[in-house]
């Protein structure tokens, strides 16, 4: 059994809970055990680097220092934003020991930064550490018939000198994984165009425009569904889709899956564990292309337990 240090990111317990839980199903099949970073904190994305320099490094560094206390040499990160902040911090610290020392003073209580843990997105982990062939070997329910547009967004492969993974312009790793699952990846030219990311709340107009173009191009490519590996992309493309449709006066009706949902499905997990009801855009139409599967439940099985929210609005 392989072990992997895991940084879930804040949205894993919220908007992208389905990413987190299906990731765990997939890793079970792939025989990988996740070890959470104890008491991890928010990576700061996307606000910290916007407003200040040191904090933008300090927040990820605390997680890196905590991760170095575990035995694993690789940290897998589900959320693309978290991945990028963590990787940027790691690369900059490793390149500039003096800077690392300075930033380290802000989290000195947690320990000394050594740079011993590598940072990978889960997509990168699947592609490089697990391998497309291993994934192909685990498929019990082929997704043949399903045409998908693989959408990577900005953060998984850019900037190239930081991520050193796949292509910043026309990446293929997710496409290859989808093909291994039996699906067909379409020729999709908007793979790495930005969806509007962090403007989801503060500048929705931008997100509607940018995500709208991505939806249009995905549809144009002939895809039944979009596949992503980033919670921000998923929520912009899925949750905002009705608004985009209303604004553009078009009906896309194109569901947005996490790559792990499709993997879990292809690995033979029961449909009712894949959290499809959490999607705003219904998935049934797209999934009908792979033939008969169990019915998609209409309701979330177990609503997430609200944890006591403390404190008040100032």
């Amino acid at each position, binding site marked *: 059994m392989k072990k992997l240090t895991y940084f879930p990111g*804040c*949205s894993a*317990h*919220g*908007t992208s809970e389905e990413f987190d839980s299906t990731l765990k199903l997939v890793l079970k099949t792939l025989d990988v055990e996740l070890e959470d970073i104890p*008491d991890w*904190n*928010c990576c*700061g994305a*996307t*606000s910290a*680097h*916007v*407003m*200040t*320099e*040191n*904090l933008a490094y*300090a*927040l990820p560094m*605390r997680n890196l220092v905590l991760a170095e206390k575990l035995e694993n040499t690789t940290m897998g990160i589900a959320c693309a934003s978290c991945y990028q902040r963590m990787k940027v911090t790691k690369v900059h610290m490793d390149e500039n020991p003096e800077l690392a020392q*300075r*930033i380290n*003073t*802000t989290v000195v*209580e947690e320990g000394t930064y050594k740079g011993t843990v590598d940072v990978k997105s889960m997509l990168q982990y699947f592609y490089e550490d697990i391998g497309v062939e291993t994934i192909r070997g685990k498929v019990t329910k082929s997704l043949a018939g399903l045409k998908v547009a693989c959408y990577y967004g*900005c*953060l998984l492969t*850019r*900037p*190239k000198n930081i991520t050193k993974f796949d292509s*910043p*312009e026309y990446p293929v790793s997710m496409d290859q994984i989808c093909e291994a699952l039996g699906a067909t990846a379409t020729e999709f030219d908007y793979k790495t*165009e*930005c969806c*509007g*990311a*962090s*403007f989801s*709340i*503060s*500048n*929705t107009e*931008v997100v509607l425009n*940018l995500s709208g173009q991505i939806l249009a191009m995905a549809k144009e490519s002939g895809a039944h569904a979009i596949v992503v590996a980033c919670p921000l992309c998923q*929520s912009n493309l899925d*949750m905002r889709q009705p608004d985009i449709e209303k604004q553009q006066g078009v009906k896309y009706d194109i569901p947005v899956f996490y790559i792990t949902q499709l993997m879990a499905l292809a690995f033979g997990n029961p449909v009712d564990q894949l959290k499809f009801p*959490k*999607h*705003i855009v219904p998935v049934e139409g797209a999934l009908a292309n792979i033939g008969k599967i169990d019915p998609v439940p209409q309701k*979330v099985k177990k*609503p*997430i337990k*609200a*944890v*006591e*929210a*403390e*404190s008040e*609005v100032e």
Partner: protein
Amino acid sequence: MITLGTQGKNTFLADVNKKSGANVLECYQCGKCVGTCPVSQYMDFPPREIMQMIKLGLRNESYMANSHWFCLTCSACSGRCPREIDIPAVMEAVRHLAIEENYINDSTKVKEIRKFHEIFLAMIKRYGRNYELRMMAEFNIRTRNLFKDMHLAPKALLKGKIPLGVKPLKSAKAIKRMYELAEKLEKNK
């Protein structure tokens, strides 16, 4: 009209270069960044023009432009820049300088963007993690737009898209301390 030649040494260029680690002088104005930038249409001045403004030493105008607030740091521009200039770092440098020197662009959009980031950072300071519902609610209250995205709320809540609460970090204290130390570092640079 801008009169050039009266400002003396271009300290703005030096400041931006130092902070960003890039060299703005390398820009030859090809505009590949502008066609690449997903939000250039929303900017007062697209990246290419900001680069030229820095070269001309237009500190005030660069600070007050909304461009650096709209930059999403998607890094598409720098990936295509034929001179390999780290344009997002330049944008970030201009923004950080503007914040440090207290230049405030008070257009509604920039105010909203800025407010979002401030709320976000305050929340991380308090909880150590992001608490999405609270984030949205607080943003709506602070920007006096109570009903923004409310049409999404019932569906999102029902589908468990947005959790009602957040687990505060055990070592919330450590995070607070980190904030203070980071702030101190920022000042002592």
